[in-house]
């Protein structure tokens, strides 16, 4: 399948005066349309940095990011969900969701904005909370609102930086299930950083494992299990343990 995102030789070194800290050294991989790819690796391997570069929040020293859709106009083709929901606390859930749509770069008529917002409120089960403020929501609802805000601009790829790691186990599983459902409903492509091997095996079509300092692609592991996946399944456990060992650098 044609990749929606191709990451090609991304290299990044952080410099602070005299000291320099290499973060990424020639990272390359593709993400295909409607794929869920999880990005894993030991702390400090540059996973978040890579995501920020793809999202346009940071610059690479070398390499390129290719995105099939977008970059013809100025509209963002990737949207980002952060670990802390990063909702604007002075806006209601509804206003947060339409934030990106109201910007001049989108140039959308109000009916279209309302239509998209309503379908996203449906999708994320937040209808009853459209007029609530973020501080009135639970952690899981905040993160769902944050996902809705990102999906609103119809991104070709949704970048998620440890989106569920601050949530309790049950809420987390609920949101992971929603990711699978959203992919099915909206044909969304996901690139997600996670620390949790179980989460990666539960969600990913492929797991990209980076080695640490500086980050290079150590392995790309396809997860060939049907959805919905069962974490108690021996095949699931086998892959999860394999991922864990690879991150620890033991295989």
């Amino acid at each position, binding site marked *: 399948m044609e990749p929606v995102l191709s990451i090609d030789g991304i290299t990044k070194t952080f410099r602070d005066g005299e000291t320099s800290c290499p973060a990424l050294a020639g990272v390359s991989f593709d993400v295909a349309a409607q794929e869920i790819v999880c990005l894993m690796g030991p702390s400090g391997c540059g996973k978040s940095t890579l995501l920020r570069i793809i999202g346009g929040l940071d610059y690479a020293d070398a390499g390129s990011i290719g995105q099939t859709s977008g970059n013809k106009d100025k509209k963002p083709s990737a949207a980002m969900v*952060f670990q802390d929901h990063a909702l604007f606390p002075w806006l209601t859930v509804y206003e947060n969701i339409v934030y990106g749509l109201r910007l001049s*770069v989108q140039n959308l008529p109000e009916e279209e904005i309302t239509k998209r917002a309503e379908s996203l409120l449906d999708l994320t089960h937040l209808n009853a909370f459209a007029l609530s403020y973020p*501080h009135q929501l639970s952690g899981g609802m905040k993160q769902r609102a944050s996902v809705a805000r990102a999906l609103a601009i119809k991104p070709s790829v949704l970048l998620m930086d440890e989106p569920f790691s601050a949530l309790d186990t049950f809420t987390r599983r609920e949101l992971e299930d929603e990711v699978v459902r959203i992919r099915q409903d909206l044909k969304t492509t996901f690139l997600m950083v996670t620390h949790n091997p179980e989460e990666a095996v539960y969600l990913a079509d492929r797991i990209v494992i980076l080695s640490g300092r500086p980050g290079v692609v150590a392995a790309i592991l396809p997860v060939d299990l049907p959805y919905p996946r069962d974490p108690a399944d021996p095949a699931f456990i086998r892959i999860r343990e394999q991922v864990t060992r690879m991150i620890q650098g033991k295989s």
Partner: protein
Amino acid sequence: MVLILKQSIRKYGKGLALIVILLIVWEGIALLIQNNYILPRLGEILSVLLQPAAPVLGGESLIQNTIQSLKEVLTGFLCAAAIAIPLGLLIGWSKEVQIYLNPTIQILRPVPPIAWMPFAIAWFGIGFNSILFIIGMGAFFPILINTVDGVQGVRLRWIEVADTFHATTFEKLRTVILPGALPVIWTGLRVSFGVAWMCVVAAEMLPGTTAGLGYLIMYAYNLGQLQVIGAGMIIIGIIGLGADTLFRAGQERLFGWQGRE
């Protein structure tokens, strides 16, 4: 009704107790010394307050003087805010601008607004415009400093969100920086209003003014009418308290999200 009364007494009773004690002490001493030129009786102050529409000392009424002072304060305060908020946004947003402007601001800031009076009179003449300038000078810096602080305290993550959606610089200022900084700006406005209110009274005490609470106090002083001074001070205090209460109420209503994001 009774319940509301009971609740208010529980809430404010302890604070009011001291005021009542001070009034009793005041009245006691006034009774003892029997000299209206040192300490007027409370009854006399009250009788001035209870006739707010009557001409005071052959001039304008309490209400007219109060309105005059309020007009000056609001105009000066709004002018100061109209300049200080955009300028503060700019300084907070751009390190470069801050480097250029900061020394000037830091030198001007500690100058008491009243010290500008001679210049104000030389530039704008006696009266409304000079008073406006003094109030503006007093109100300006608390708003400016708080706006700069507010902008610099806006969470970087919110700006990054706007960046991922490709917001323009102006959109970022309007949709993220300004609302994110607003609670701190609001604090600046609150402080500034208090300063402006103090400035108006002081500025009106200077020669050449013909109305306002500060003028009334000074005029009453020249005539030895201390009960009018007392009445003027009470109005000043109550309006100051009222304004502060409004700002606080606004803070809770508008920025309930603060500290809970």
